């Protein structure tokens, strides 16, 4: 592994989230609650569609994680009802369904992201953190800055410590996505989805190679690493890993 590899625990989280998990599988729900808690977030559990909707409608949550198939009320109808009431809290749909156009239906109902079971928790966590409405930098900005690294979306230029860095168009989009979610873990699938617009599982290390090429360009000749590999999860762009916080 290269020097930029780190563990997720090496990074402190900027924000702690309040997450509503609507999931009827008790064991899965308990696991999610515990796992989110370990990641520094608070998760509330609803075991069926009706109580889930009531909680979502009443409470102040940062992200919803909603199972698609629920007793009493279907996950998609919860989301469309919430959206109809003007509730724009980001929602991630979990699904064990297997139709080819499930993702499209899910997103059309008002979901913001879609994850098929079985999934790795690191994948879910990364996606939920990116969805977090308080994560701030989601809005379209013309300029991203991470430490001494700058990306200008208008002029399509990248500089580090004032030095111009030339990137291929795809590398630029990759860096743009990483910078927009600086300080957050992004997984390989998230990169494939958002930078290449494909939703399948890249079997091999294709994304890693793209990332390491990009890393070569933005780190070679500079002292500090900015693009970190997070073991078992993905990547994180962060200027100064703060190892003092838990």
């Amino acid at each position, binding site marked *: 592994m290269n020097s930029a590899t780190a563990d997720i625990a090496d990074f402190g989280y900027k924000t702690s989230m309040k997450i509503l998990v609507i999931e009827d599988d008790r064991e899965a729900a308990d696991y999610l609650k515990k796992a989110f808690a370990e990641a520094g977030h608070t998760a509330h559990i609803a075991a069926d569609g009706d109580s889930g909707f009531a909680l979502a409608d009443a409470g102040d949550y940062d992200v919803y994680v909603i199972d698609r198939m629920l007793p009493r009320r279907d996950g998609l109808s919860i989301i469309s009802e919430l959206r109809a009431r003007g509730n724009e809290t980001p929602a991630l749909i979990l699904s064990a369904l*297997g*139709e*080819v*156009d499930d993702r*499209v239906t899910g997103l059309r109902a008002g979901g913001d992201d879609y994850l*098929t079971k*079985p*999934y*790795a928790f690191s994948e879910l966590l990364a996606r939920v953190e990116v969805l977090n409405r308080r994560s701030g930098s989601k809005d379209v900005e013309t300029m991203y800055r991470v430490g001494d690294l700058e990306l200008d979306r208008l002029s399509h230029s990248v500089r580090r410590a004032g030095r111009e860095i030339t990137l291929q168009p*795809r590398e630029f989009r990759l860096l743009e996505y990483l910078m927009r979610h600086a300080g957050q873990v992004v997984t390989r699938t998230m990169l*494939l989805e958002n930078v*290449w617009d*494909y*939703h*399948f*599982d*890249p*079997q*091999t*290390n*294709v994304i890693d*190679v*793209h990332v390491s*090429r990009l890393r070569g360009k933005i780190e070679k000749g500079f002292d500090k690493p900015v693009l970190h590999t997070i*073991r*078992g999860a993905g990547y994180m762009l962060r200027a100064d890993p703060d190892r003092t916080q838990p």
Partner: protein
Amino acid sequence: MPALPAVMKTTAARLSALYLVLFIICATFLVFYMTSLSVRMLLDQTRDTIQEEVLDLGRAYQRGGLSRLVRVIELRARQPGANLYLIADPNGRVLSGNVESLQPSVLDNVGWIERPFAYRRYGEAESSGGSPLTGHSATALVFRLPNQMIVLVGRDIGEVERFRDVVRRALVVAFGIMGLGALLIWYFVGRRALKRIDKVSEASRRIMGGDLTGRLPMSGAGDEFDRLSENLNKMLDRITALNEGLRHVSDNIAHDLKTPLTRLRNRAEAALAGKPRTAEYRAALERTIAESDQLIRTFNAILMISRLEAGYSAEATTRVDLKAIVDDVVELYEPAAEEVGVKLEAHVEKAVEIDGNRELIGQALSNIVDNGIKYSAGMSETPLVSVSLKVEGGEAWLTVTDNGPGIPPEEQGRVTERFVRLETSRTQPGSGLGLSLAKAVLSYHGGRLEIAGRKPGLSVAMIFPMGKGG
């Protein structure tokens, strides 16, 4: 015949019986209608002749009185095959004519005798024993002369009746033969059809009994039965293939997933059994996660294949440009290929649009490209994977070729089966589902996957139908 009740149970037999009854009714009606019509025509003709005769006789009477009338009648009565003539006094006593005896009461009424009556001519021998009046029937006109004498002019209608009987008999015999023939033909044809149906139902019983290799018999005649059997056989082939696939999957899940699961479990056990050292725990957990990810990947691929095999969804399909997908995938894999010393290139001239799902095609293509890179890396001086796209015969050919070791021809059919990883590739990472998934994607699009050997290397062609807009 013992087979008859079974024959009678068939729809064909019931319909035939109905037709037979209708046929008999129609035939009977036809026989009676035709004969009675012709008889009436003949009778009318006879009456006309009699009428004429009567007019003649009337003229003779007017000219020469009774004596001339009698003379004329006697003259005519002696001619061969003559009409019947009779003159009687007002009391009914016969004066002259060629009629010896008459059915009684014939002379009572003046006018047409509507019903045929029996008579006997002079010189005719009385038939022994029976009624003297049998054997002849006639129709006649009876009238009275002004002096109350009775005159009868008639004609034998035996000919007419014989004609009617002959025609009637002939028709009955003809219809009888036709009916019998139809019955026989129907019986043998029906039996033949029934035998074939019996064979089909016997075969299907065998198949239902568990012998899925059984197929319905075909006579080779190419008729409706053969077409039906052929379609049912195709259906059985499909069911068998699905069934095989299912069994294959469960077998392979058992075998291939058991191995990593066991490894996972053993690793956890070994970590627990050793000294409690954080570093070792950590390493064990990391490898556990990596292994689980691979398992999840395999499961997702299995799920994806089954959902693709479940069928086509028009909603998930749009017009997609294959060139754009090729560009995307080549761009995605190019750095990874270069990393292992493989040159990846695309030969695409122009956009080719088909009805399809971009995601699925992209995934299938990347699986094939991934395989090409994996298997050609380090296998030749200049490992090369090239992707080409062309339109040929209304189909879009998306071909990935490599110059790696290829696949032995006898194994080429097998590589698209789930979990099949040829012995030589066991050392390479992967779920063994890449080509199966590609094949499922192609069949989802109504296309096919063709694998051909090259010297050296392998060519995998994804062939898509061009669709309505092509």
